[in-house]
Structure formats: C-alpha cells, structure tokens
C-alpha cells in the first residue's frame, strides 16, 4: 500500500513537472527585462515556498511530539527538516545563478539571501544536534525543542533582515501586492511549480521517514545484540 502511494506521488509530480516545463518553454514569452533567465525563478521561488512549508511543518510536528510523545512526529520532523534543507540549497543555488546574470555577482548580503544562509545554518545545527545524541528519546525531545526555537528564530530573522537590507526584488505575487504586478500566466506558473515541488517534497519526506524507522530498528537491534 505504502509502495503504491510513493509511486503514485512520484508519477503525479513527474507528470506535473513535465507539464510545467513544457508550458514554461513553449508558451510563456521571454520577460521584458530579463530575457530567458527569468525562467529560473519558476524553480527558485517555489523552492523557497516548499522549504519554508517544510520547516513550518517540522516546527508543528515538534510541538505535537512534545505534547503527545508519539515518535512518528519526531520522524516526520527530521525528515521535513532534511528535505527542507535540500530545497533551501536549491533555492540558494538557483538564486545565485540568477544573480550572476542580473546583478553581475554570485552573492550579495541582501535580505532574502542572508536569511536563507542563516536558515541553512540553523537547520544544519538541528541535524548536528541529532547526530550528537545517541539516546533516541533524549534525541527526539531535545531536537523537538531546538526545532521550535529554530522556527521562531527563522521567522523573526526573516522580518528583521528585511528591515536591514533589501536588494532582492520586492514582492510581486498577488497575495502580497494585491494584484497587477505580474502577468497572470507567470504567476500561475509559480503556483503550479510550487504544487509540483511540494508533491516531490512529500515523496522525499515519506521515503526519509521510512529510513528513519529503519534507523530506529537498527538501534534497537544493536541494543539487543549488545545484550547477548
């Protein structure tokens, strides 16, 4: 059953991505100021949405874990953070390449980039903490607390750095500006890609969760082996 869900998710997200790519290249015109490169944004922006969603869900899962003490929440949290980190790296890479063409530099300390880098470090710290604790219950508890702090910090940092420096393009999507800044076809493309990437992320999270279960089995088997 689980296998079937995974395969279904994989197929749907692959199909959706193919559809998006074809629309991207065949139907949408080149943007006035940015020529062809703007198409990277169709992966860049949805990656950010996906990673932020993953981190938010990990934060909520951590809260649930502390309340209910059910290990499935802990498994979900670590999987979501890992997948979120992967998408953060995608966002950073695509953003840099876009910036190289449009701004002429690979990196700049503007609001979103700085935030992205900090978020990356914060969640790498989460994974580091998990690696440093051997006892599964202590590990789950401590990393849940860290995840909650991390998400709060990441949200606050988002706003603060925005006040500090802004070179990044200002919001153009409708839910932020109230409409009129962006061609509707491009906007819908961003949302479409967000959907597709979110499905892909869910698939990866489910796979990672299964691995975490393996890890738990491994640890309990190790303990049994040592007991003999």
């Amino acid at each position, binding site marked *: 059953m689980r296998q079937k869900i995974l395969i279904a998710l994989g197929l749907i997200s692959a199909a959706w991505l193919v559809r998006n790519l074809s629309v991207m290249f065949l139907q949408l015109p080149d943007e006035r100021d940015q020529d062809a490169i703007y198409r990277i944004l169709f992966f860049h922006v949805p990656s950010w949405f996906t990673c932020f969603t993953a981190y938010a869900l990990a934060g909520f899962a951590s809260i649930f874990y502390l309340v209910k003490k059910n290990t499935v929440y802990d498994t979900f949290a670590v999987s979501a953070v890992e997948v979120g980190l992967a998408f953060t790296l995608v966002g950073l890479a695509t953003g840099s390449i876009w910036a190289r063409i449009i701004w002429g530099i690979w990196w700049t300390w503007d609001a979103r980039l700085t935030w992205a880098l900090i978020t990356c470090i914060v969640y790498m710290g989460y994974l580091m903490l998990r690696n440093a604790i051997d006892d599964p219950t202590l590990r789950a508890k401590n990393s849940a607390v860290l995840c909650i*702090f991390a998400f709060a910090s990441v949200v*606050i940092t988002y706003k603060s750095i925005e006040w500090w420096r802004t070179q990044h393009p200002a919001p153009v999507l409708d839910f932020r500006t109230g409409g009129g800044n962006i061609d509707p076809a491009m906007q819908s493309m961003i949302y479409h890609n967000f959907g597709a990437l979110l499905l892909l992320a869910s698939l990866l999270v489910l796979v990672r969760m299964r691995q975490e279960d393996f890890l738990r089995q491994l640890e309990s088997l190790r303990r049994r082996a040592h007991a003999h």
Partner: protein
Amino acid sequence: MRYASQCWTIATKDLRSEFRTKESLNAAIAFALVVLVLFSFTADITNPELIYEMSGGLLWLVYAFAGTLVLNRSFARELPNDALDVLIASPAPGSAIFLGKAVANYLLLLLIELICLPIFGILYNVRWERNIPWLVAVILLATWGMTVIGTAFSALTVNLRLRELMLPTLIYPMLIPALMAAMRLSTVLISGEAITGNDWIWFRLLIGFDIIFTSLALLLVEVILVG
C-alpha cells in the same frame, strides 16, 4: 513568593560559585581582550569615521563571543557529582531553575560588558559616553536576549560531548536578530546621535525578541530539564 525565593537561591548559588573561582569570568574577559586586539589588525583603525561606523558591530561581536564562555558553564557546572539531577529532583520547578540561572548569567554578562566597554573606548579611541541612558537600555535588552537563549541552549546541550562547540554554533544564528538590532542601535548611540525614526524598529525588535524567547524558554524548559 516561594517561586521568587527559589529563583533567587539558585541565582545566588551560581554567582557565589562563580566568584569563588572566577574562572569563566577571567576567561571571558581575557577572550574579549584578545578579540579586541585581533580586530585592530583587520582595517585602518586610525580612521575615526570607520571606527565609529563599526563600533556597534565590534562591541557586540566581542560581547557575543565572551558571553558564550560564561553561558556554556551555566549548566555544565552542575554535571559533576550529579548536581543537575539533584536540582531537577528538588521541589523547585524547572522554570525557577532556569530563571535563577538566567539571572545569574545575566549579571555575569553585564559585568563583563561593563568591564569591556571602557577598554574598548580606550583602545579604539571611541567616546561612548554621549548617550549613556539609551546605551544602557540597549545593552540591558540585548544581553537579556543573549542570556535567555544561551541558558536554554546550555540546558539543551549539557549532556553532549561536543558541548563547547555545539553551543556557539546553535545560539549565534538564533541571536542574529537581537545582535543586529543591538549593533545598529549601539553604532547610532556611540556616534553621539539619538535614535530616530527608522531605528525605533530595531528597539522594538529587541523588546519583541526578548518577550518571545523568554516566553518560549519558560514554556519549554520543563521539557528540556525533565522530559
């Protein structure tokens, strides 16, 4: 009232044990001096404009680095002789233990910062005394933010082998909003100007940061300590 006296007992215990040996205090001040000296090699420090621009940043970097040495010791000092288990088993609630230690750390950090400020002024020829009330307010607020997160994370990492390495790695990214605000405000105040229009955002950020993370820490400390 019992709660307050429990916090106070723990705070004074920590302070007393720290002042007996003064080891982390000395280490922190020595480290702060080292950073101040190292920084003098990074740029043309005889240029007053440059120094005033970087004053806030440098000051808070020094405070952050030195502070971590103190914060690390906070829960680590309870490890020998199972003192931590005894503390947790005592009738004092987890939040009282946390607040007590936080207050002790706060006072220690303020002491270190108070000592470093005039040294910084002398070494870099910076006149920081022009806006003292506001500067003190900023220092008090930002140091509390550092203390709360540092103490909470000290509890989180107390059992780890690589505690000394993990604590700075974990807390510095979290402290970035508070440090940014403190640096920005300190630069403005040390340069002799008053806090104007846009800079009030940073002041409000400091207050918000303190409130949010103090509440979060108090909520979660019971879980961290006891499980």
